[in-house]
């Protein structure tokens, strides 16, 4: 019985631990996608992208994150910048 409980405990640690690691990896991947979107849509945070006509081709494959990017990344970048400089 004790051995069983031990194994059960280890199982949960393993299961939860793995899930955490997976989450972390997916989170990292997601942030890289955000970075890519920031480069493509840099115009939205005030930095022109002279290659927008070319990079727009990538948009269909990244647009699943478009709304999330607008809400979190773009907002946080703008917030950081504007809190330092104030709104024009």
């Amino acid at each position: 019985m004790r051995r069983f409980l031990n194994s059960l405990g280890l199982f949960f640690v393993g299961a939860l631990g793995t899930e955490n690691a997976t989450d972390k990896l997916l989170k990292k991947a997601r942030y890289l996608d955000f970075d890519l979107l920031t480069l493509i849509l840099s115009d939205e945070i005030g930095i022109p992208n002279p290659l927008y006509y070319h990079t727009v081709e990538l948009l269909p494959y990244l647009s699943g994150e478009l709304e999330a990017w607008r809400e979190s990344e773009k907002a946080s970048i703008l917030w950081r910048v504007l809190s330092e400089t104030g709104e024009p």
Partner: protein
Amino acid sequence: MKPVSLRNYRIFFLSGKGGVGKSTLSTALALALSKRGFKTLLVSLDPAHSLSILLKKGLGGAPREVAPSLSAFEVDLEREMRDYLKKVERDAEKIISPALIEKVKNQIELAYNSPGALELATVDSVYRIVKNYGRGFDKIVFDTAPSGYTVRLMASPDKLLNWVDSLIEMREEALNYRKMAGEEVKEDPVLSILRKRREEYRFLGELFRSDKTLFGVVVNPGELPLKIGERTLKEIEEAGVPVRLILANKFREKGGELFKKPTLYFPPLEKEPLGLTSLEPLVSVFEKYIG
């Protein structure tokens, strides 16, 4: 300075402000090359479509023989842009939920009027034409050169290629994390698009800086037109692309070298240039320098 020998070049771009005679001189140059037996392709990237008027022939989107050894065609850049962005929209429709698609389409449509769009469409066409027709023709003459700014973008490949490389790395890293997290990662369209663009930028950078490529600047007489011509020349050369020829158009008298460059002088034409025979006085100038 050594006189220029036109036979040494394969690809020709004539730069200069609107109305200086780029289309007229490009046509005369292409005709001169074809008369010397070089199989020549004349391409108009000029949105004004002056080539078909000048040749008095309807030109379409595919090369058409207009004289022995000379084929010509006009690129409809606006249509190219439309077709390209429509394809991006279709790609989007295939994968994006109906709830989101309108927002994404609006974002894609912004590209029509984004700064530099027409210029980038121009270099896309140059890339495709040289790749598709480079082998079938001895010489290709473009009647419009991309602007100094675009030439600079394409001719400084280190900067541009590093930029694309960093995007590629970013994407590869993201895919690696997904793989490690146990997701199935298939052929990635983002990577293949980025790699295709990288190849395009590399190719154009080499093309613009090649010693087989001739960039010429067309100038007209008068202090102001000459100043403008000199500025165009500087823009191109600052991009790391040598200007090999000045084409002094509509000059009644010959002068020396302009801007310390080999200079060809072309007389004003008696009549409006319409039809190939009307270009004869210009063609004969080029023929002397084919070598």
